[in-house]
């Protein structure tokens, strides 16, 4: 997580998670000689190990630990004094209608954003990989490189720029109303983000827009990792494209889909960058307010550090719970699938 912000987090977590376990390929001969504590070795360890680990502990792990304590205090951030208030902050949060609204919005995002993104990404990935001719080897669509390069591009644009860009597109005299005007639909300068009925849907679309390309590339890679013989065999058995995708490809890339679902869900539970750029005030009637935005406002505008940190704790717990639920659901589905087939 080079730092939760932009879409990058998905990639990073992903690679780490996948590359990390496959390490023990070769038993380390422990570099031969038993290490003597020579000045060389000591200075080496101090700089190569102690320095980075210390940095990491002080600026990453220590704040995480502190957060648990701070969430139980009424620290204001402007004074060094804080007194212990127990679970008061959490009680306050669950009585705060704006926070509950934010949590509901996050829940909606966590359900819709991953679902829509993954369905579109899978669809595109399938079109690209099996869209080619149905005879001979299973081949992809011609010219697919172009689509891949273009759709992937939003991934490298800073998320805040994506959000601001779409803010302008949705503006009354923005691109969307202009395009609709070309098709003869007069929207009468409709403010897409200023209306409670459309603000959330419009925001969701922006998040999907920003993430589809990345997951498409990821799924394409996963599909390409399926042995060609498997696809060939399916084709010889008379499976059409649709059948190949649903019965052969999807089960094979299930783990990738699961991982993507978790990262997308966690990104949706955060959603800070997008919402900050689209509707920095939380939208009409707080309809696009998310917990992270509320947290930020509580901490850095109102100075209620204790309360804000309590929100952080809630956010962290929900993120972990989300990951747990997704894994459970996928295990249940998986179990059924295998039972049906064997």
């Amino acid at each position, binding site marked *: 997580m*080079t730092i939760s912000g932009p879409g990058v987090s998905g990639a990073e977590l992903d690679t780490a998670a996948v590359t990390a376990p496959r390490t023990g390929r070769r038993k380390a001969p422990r570099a031969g000689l038993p290490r003597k504590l020579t000045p060389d070795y000591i200075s080496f360890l101090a700089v190569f190990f102690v320095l980075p680990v210390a940095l990491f502990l002080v600026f990453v792990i220590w704040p995480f630990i502190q957060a648990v304590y701070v969430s139980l205090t009424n620290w204001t951030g402007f004074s060094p004094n804080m007194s212990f208030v127990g679970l008061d902050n959490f009680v306050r949060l669950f009585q705060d209608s704006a926070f509950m609204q934010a949590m509901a919005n996050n829940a909606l995002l966590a359900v819709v954003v991953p679902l829509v993104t993954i369905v579109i990404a899978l669809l595109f990935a399938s079109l690209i990989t099996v869209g080619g001719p149905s005879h001979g080897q299973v081949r992809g669509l011609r010219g697919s490189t172009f689509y891949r390069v273009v759709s992937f591009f939003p991934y490298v644009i800073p998320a805040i720029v994506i959000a601001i860009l779409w803010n302008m597109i949705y503006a009354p005299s923005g691109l969307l109303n202009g395009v609709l005007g070309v098709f003869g639909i007069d929207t009468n300068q409709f403010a897409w983000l200023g209306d409670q009925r459309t603000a959330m849907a419009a925001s969701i679309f922006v998040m999907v827009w920003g993430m589809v390309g990345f997951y498409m590339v990821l799924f394409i890679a996963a599909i390409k990792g399926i042995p060609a013989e498997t696809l060939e065999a399916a084709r010889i058995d008379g499976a059409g494209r649709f*059948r190949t995708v649903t019965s052969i490809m999807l089960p094979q890339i299930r783990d990738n889909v699961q991982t993507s679902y978790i990262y997308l869900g966690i990104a949706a539970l955060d959603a800070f960058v997008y919402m900050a750029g689209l509707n920095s005030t939380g939208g009409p009637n707080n309809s696009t307010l998310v917990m992270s935005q509320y947290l930020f406002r509580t901490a850095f505008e109102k100075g209620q550090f204790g309360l804000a940190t309590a929100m952080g704790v809630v956010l962290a717990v929900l993120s972990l719970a989300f990951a747990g639920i997704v894994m459970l659901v996928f295990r249940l589905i998986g179990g059924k699938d295998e039972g049906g087939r064997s």
Partner: protein
Amino acid sequence: MSLDTRAAVTVGRKTNDVHITKSTTSDKVVGGVSHVVLALWSLVVILPLVWTIIGSFKTTKEIFKSPFGLPAQWNFDNYVTAWVGNNFGGMFLNTVIVVGFSLFFVMLLGAMCAYVLARFEVPGSRVVYYLMLAGLTFPVFLAIVPLFGILQNIGLLGTLPGLIVVYVAYALPFTVFFLYSFFKSLSYEIQEAAYLDGASEWRTFFQVMLPMAKPGLAAIAIMNFLGLWNQFLLPIALNPNKDNYVLSQGMASFASSAGYSLDFGAMFAAVIITIIPVLIIYILFQRQLQGSVSQGTSK
């Protein structure tokens, strides 16, 4: 997913397994539909960007008149306004400094730490490994308030060095994980040989092991560059000093400062200024970038 599978069972198309040699009608239909769908999506991606580029050359009045019209005069007024008038030049410089130093240090420290974790028996290395995993998993939002306090205490709040230190710390876990497997796979014989030739631990790392990990370093450097350049939460929370703004937070503050009465032309120009570096990196390293995405999943 379950729905999909069920649909497959009931629908189960029985076409196109007869024709062996030439493209069938259904091939053409599927191919055609695929191209249309993907082309439409490409348009949805490209159109906003083209609109932005054209908009960055228009006056705000022209932008409001029609979203499609071309500018009467192609000039760089908006860029000048954004670069000088709204201090995006200064912010660009800040971003380059912060990202440059952070990238250098995170690559150096990340590589060193991964090297030790992967190839040495150091007490506590297991614990560190799992802590790094935790650092990747928990939302930064949980840490952001205490982090603010820590930086305030050591007097680095709102300074570029403070930002650099935090960037390095938060990009470190991912860098270490990525490089860990690279260093793990390098040959032990070569390391042995370096020792036998009398090289110190330091020299073995910098002159023998590090060069061998180059492909891994390049991949992770690109991803870190993008991640750091695009970073938003850390600067807006920890860098309140306007003189030290980086581009991403400058964009946000510029956009929210005026609402709809904003200087749209300058805004478009600012967007382009922010995107150009990542665009260049993307065009240059597109292959490697998509490759490293694949790498994470295909194995």
